[in-house]
């Protein structure tokens, strides 16, 4: 079991219904892809937010990572849609 701080932005935040939370992750959640799969088991709001996994972007400790990235040692993991700044 490991504990991780999660932050959500834009419509990921709106659909999940919160901007941040701290979760205990079961063993077996090794990568971002594993994390997304795990979150989708937590309720329909997570399923709605993460339905299209391929468009979800992730950052570990405020740096972009892809879904294969291991999450061990992460202080903060962010999940959000493609960015639309500028």
């Amino acid at each position: 079991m490991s504990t991780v701080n999660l932050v959500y932005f834009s419509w990921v935040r709106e659909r999940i219904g919160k901007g941040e939370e701290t979760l205990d992750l079961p063993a077996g959640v090794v990568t971002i892809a594993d994390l997304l799969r795990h979150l989708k088991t937590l309720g329909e709001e997570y399923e709605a937010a993460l339905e299209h996994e391929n468009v979800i972007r992730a950052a570990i400790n405020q740096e972009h990572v892809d879904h294969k990235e291991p999450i061990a040692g992460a202080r903060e993991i962010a999940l959000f849609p493609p960015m639309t700044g500028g």
Partner: protein
Amino acid sequence: MNAPVTVRVQRDDFDLNSEVAKLSAGRADIGAVVTFSGLCRDEAGTLAALELEHYPGMAEAEIERICREAIERFSLEAATAIHRYGKIMPGENIVLVVTASRHRQAAFDGANFIMDFLKTSAPFWKKEHLGDGTTGGWVSAKDADDTARDRWTTK
């Protein structure tokens, strides 16, 4: 040589002239300054405002990474990038990029490069508020922005 980078993420507006003046103050080696500013459009009168959400901390860090890469790649003498968040009305500023170099091409290319990467990798999201008082939803990312970014790597 360590070219100075200034990055700010702020609610308030910025002033082009004062940012250019700050960047070039006391620098007789700079021969070219390019500024790009991005403004909020009203989308033919339908848009009342944009609301910009950002990831505090990462937004600044990511823009700084992009500016440092531009400095390295184009041998810029200095770079400034300012991005606003919160509610922004049509006609107001959203983003400013200022680049400085010895000769003009590097400053032009550097500003272009910074904007292309800023749009696709700096953590900001725009939500539309429409003139009829409803929320228009989140702006979708454009493939054209990915294409613009990728031209810097596929050359």
